[in-house]
């Protein structure tokens, strides 16, 4: 336990420590997480392999994998793990550092979407779907993907042009000041 707290990672991302480390140390590599993962076939590192790397403190390999952003956070792995290890909890720990440190990764459109989402929340207090999609497309230069679908949703009245500004907007801005997305 103490040793795991002292493990240093090679780069900007620190290995799991404390409670998280002690939980993942219980992994005996049965592979049940990987067997049930709906995106395992697309992954370059399987869930049980990521847990092992986490135990060994080699988080750089997770940072540079596709898998870290392919994880759907469906928690099927965690729900079935005989040792109560939730792989998304391990990955969230790493993802937070990747986002805060603006570290380049594979599948960059995934963190781009989530940060755009949060910027939208910071701005409006609530999510405004139309500007979220617009901002995401601007960031990723994917102007034409889903254009037909977007128009259809607009026609059905599922997208609002104007955002609503709740009064709690300022409280939300204050919350963001204590986060890595200032």
């Amino acid at each position, binding site marked *: 336990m103490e040793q795991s707290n002292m493990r240093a990672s090679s780069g900007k991302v620190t290995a799991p420590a404390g409670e998280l480390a002690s939980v993942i140390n219980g992994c005996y590599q049965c592979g049940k997480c990987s067997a049930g993962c709906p995106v395992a076939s697309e992954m370059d590192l399987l869930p049980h392999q990521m847990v092992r790397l986490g135990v060994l403190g080699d988080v750089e390999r997770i940072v540079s994998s596709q898998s870290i952003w392919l994880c759907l956070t469906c928690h099927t792995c965690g729900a079935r793990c005989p040792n109560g290890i939730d792989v998304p909890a391990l990955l969230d720990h790493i993802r937070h550092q990747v986002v805060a440190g603006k570290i380049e990764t594979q599948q960059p459109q995934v963190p781009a979407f989530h940060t755009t989402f949060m910027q939208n929340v910071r701005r409006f207090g609530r999510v405004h779907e139309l500007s979220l999609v617009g901002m995401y497309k601007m960031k990723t230069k994917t102007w034409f993907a889903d254009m037909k*679908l977007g128009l259809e949703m607009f026609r059905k009245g599922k997208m609002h042009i104007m955002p609503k500004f709740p009064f709690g907007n300022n409280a*939300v801005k204050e919350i963001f000041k204590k986060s890595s997305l200032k």
Partner: protein
Amino acid sequence: MELSYYPGCTLTGSAQELNESFTNAASALGITLKELPDWTCCGASSAHMVDAYLESALPARDLLLAEELARDVVAPCAACHLRLKAAAHRIGEDEALRRDFPFKGEIKVLSGLELFHRDELRAALKSKVVKPLEGLRVVPYYGCLAVRPPEILQPADPENPMEMDRLLEALGAEVLDWPYKTDCCGGSLALTRTDLVLKLSRKLLDMALMVDADVMVTFCPMCQANLDTRQEDISRETGHAYQIPIVYLTELMGVALGNPQARSWFGKHLVSPERILASKGLI
């Protein structure tokens, strides 16, 4: 019964039919919903991916608002419900967070399914059915966030939930046995890896077709949007026409309770359930 109501962003936007059918169903069962004044976003499926403080603090603000009013709060959106519950859990463990958001846990956070599944409400629902959904073959699709993570949500059975099955039976529908009740539709990668999402969603739709379902029933707005809007892409990719309506449980409650507004909700769907429901004489 009086409850605070946390609609969440999606129900004010792309899932208005869930908002309308949910509030209608609640009112038909004698539940008074009072929208939480000044509520803000719970952080949804994004906050936990980018920052630990945002993950808990955004929903914690809403929890505090709800606790001030001393009423239990219901959040129909599966993601909002999970985020609020997870924050309540975290506040109990994290002293620094508790200092910022002194939520005492004196109120309950309810999911829509949990609410309607209560014995007295299920009995009331059954007694108010004027149009039993006879002959309607349905597959209940719970998705991820109704049951996972189980340590937060404490489901009776995370692999084989039955709450929606029982409610659909109360409405008179023919509930089909199928294996993908809680398999992920891929919603969180909807815009970022659409190719993967098409595969995952297609797997679910194929199984629904295999058991000859008329409609797939859900309570989660991400699942509904994902499965409803992607059928055209899947049809184009496979050369087969996918036309399976994905309806909210509360929309079917509206139909069974004889709510004349039900048709207006179906106009919001890309694959409308109107034709199949009309062919069974239900609308």
